[in-house]
């Protein structure tokens, strides 16, 4: 068995294996070990989709933080009825609304509420989803049955309908936080199911058994194997959901149960604009356009993140 020919035979297997040409980064043996996240980031950096999404996302965050800058000096509440419904011009890019307020200023100031609701609701969804899903998947049995049935009950009510009922009942009020909570309350179940199924799959996987056989502690298995595999899909889902929830907020507001005047939001603007669609179509066009772009930005980032977090998707 110690035949030197066999050693060379071992090396010959390269020819049969799926050998990829060594990438330029992988040659740095002296470097430290790459974690899942640093590898994902390297992959993300090369994705055009991610950069488009991130640039748009960043732009909208900046608008939300500093609306004054993007309003080009105009005050959204400084209105003059004589300018009511004026079409876009070189001076006022988005024109004026029915009250004669600068529309660009209004759309810029609307970004803050929309983004806060989207991000806040997703944060609540993430916390609820990961917590309930992990408990459910990890313990299984009665705990799992109980929590899964609770999720089913919430699933029975569609997101918009559920939030509508909660907001109509009035005990949360009608502010930004109320809308975010109402949306999160009926939007956490998918995240929970994602985490639950991932935890169950990873818990019984061969590589967890292998890790255990090689002396990995429970906490190491949780941190190294269960969490990264469970959190990656839910993170992707969350990014996409930010966009969906911003659209849902606009829907609720449009239906008259979300934010209320004098709050400024894209939903309110679309609602007000649709009555004047024939005389002043720009009142619907601009907030809808910005809303669509915001949703798209988050969906694109989510897509790119999904590709980056799955090594099998990498080229």
């Amino acid at each position: 068995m110690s035949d030197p020919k066999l050693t060379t035979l071992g090396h010959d297997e390269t020819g049969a294996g799926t050998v990829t040409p060594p990438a330029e980064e992988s040659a740095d043996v002296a470097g430290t070990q790459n974690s899942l996240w640093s590898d994902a980031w390297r992959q993300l950096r090369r994705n055009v989709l991610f950069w488009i999404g991130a640039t748009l996302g960043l732009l909208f965050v900046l608008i939300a933080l500093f609306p004054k800058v993007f309003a080009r000096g105009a005050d959204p509440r400084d209105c003059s009825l004589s300018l009511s419904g004026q079409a876009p011009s070189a001076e006022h890019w988005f024109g004026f609304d029915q009250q004669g307020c600068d529309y660009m200023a209004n759309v810029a100031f609307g970004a803050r509420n929309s983004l806060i609701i989207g991000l806040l609701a997703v944060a609540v969804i993430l916390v609820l989803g990961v917590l309930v899903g992990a408990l459910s998947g990890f313990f299984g049995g009665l705990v799992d049955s109980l929590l899964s049935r609770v999720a089913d009950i919430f699933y029975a009510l569609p997101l918009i309908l559920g939030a509508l009922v909660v907001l109509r009942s009035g005990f949360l009020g009608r502010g930004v936080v109320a809308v975010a909570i109402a949306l999160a309350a009926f939007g956490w179940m998918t995240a929970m199911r994602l985490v639950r199924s991932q935890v169950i799959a990873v818990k019984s996987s061969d590589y967890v058994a292998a890790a255990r056989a090689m002396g990995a502690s429970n906490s190491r298995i949780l941190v190294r194997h269960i969490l990264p595999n469970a959190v990656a899909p839910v993170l992707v889902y969350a990014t996409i959901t930010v966009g969906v929830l911003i659209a849902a907020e606009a829907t609720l507001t449009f239906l008259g149960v979300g934010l209320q005047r004098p709050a400024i939001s894209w939903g309110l603007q679309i609602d007000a604009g649709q009555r004047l669609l024939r005389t002043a179509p720009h009142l619907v066009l601009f907030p809808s356009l910005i809303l669509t772009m915001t949703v798209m930005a988050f969906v694109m980032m989510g897509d790119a993140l999904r590709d980056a977090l799955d090594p099998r998707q990498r080229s």
Partner: protein
Amino acid sequence: MSTASASVPYAPGRGGSGPVLEVQDLRVQFRTDSGLVNAVNGVSYTVSEGETVAILGESGSGKSVSAQAIMGILDMPPAEITSGRIMFEGRDLLTAPAEEQRKVRGPGISMIFQDALSSLNPVYSVGFQIGEMFRAHRGTSRKEAKKLAVELMDRVRIPAAAQRVNDYPHQFSGGMRQRVMIAMAIALDPRILIADEPTTALDVTVQAQVMDLLKDLQRDTGMGLVLITHDLGVVNEVADNVAVMYAGRIVERGTVDDVFGNPAHPYTEGLMASIPMLEAKGGRLQPIGGQPPNLSSIPSGCPFHPRCPKRRLGADALPGRHCAEDVPPLRLVVPGREAACHYSEEVLGV
């Protein structure tokens, strides 16, 4: 008997010349909806330094379950270890505190699995996963762990290790993945390596390479190797001693040459007859008749008796040696040979 802390790296030759691993009367049951399944029914064996013990058996004979019991990766429940001891360097792992057991696994006893792809975490590079052994057990820095991972990949003969250390499991071929798995398993110089069907998922030429690698590594490190397999060819090639399992019991044990050359149990004899032989080309293979036993209702007496061509029932049987009633104990038949058959002498022809 060594009582040194398990976190100390094991050096070959420590702990005297006695067996490193000693499994005594291990019994494992599974509680299922359709009743109790007796997967392992009193298995005992020992592994010494540098020794290769093959556990040979068909699917469902309990060979993998006994290995999983040693590694502490049985799902309990439904599994339950109802009796037995697993002595590693003189300490019983089954009664040791969980933390102590965990410290033995990796540096003391390690394991490689049948399906290397599913045994590697898809989201980490292979280098990271090999390096994890050092980081987890020795607190090595990431940089140092990566260097050690490359060294190990060289040692298991993965070509261009330095370039491939950052690649992911799915980018490797089956044989290379198994090498990565082996690299992880030997990272901490274990005294015992359990290989659970290490070559079953590989094609024949790669099988031979992986087995040669395991043998070479064993020669270098002096570790004991437990080879769990249903492949008679692999056993013949690499093992020193073989234990043949049937229905959760060891039915025959001895050196590979003895057992394969002249079986002392009708089951082993049946296995040998079912090997395709070059000289018998064109002839029919002789399979063992009947079905492997249902482990939730193992036949009374000798579990092999319904399929045994040499069984003795009724008036044919000698007193106390009725094949359908009396369970044959594993006994010394001739020096160095143990078999669990009432009529081993007859089977052997001595």
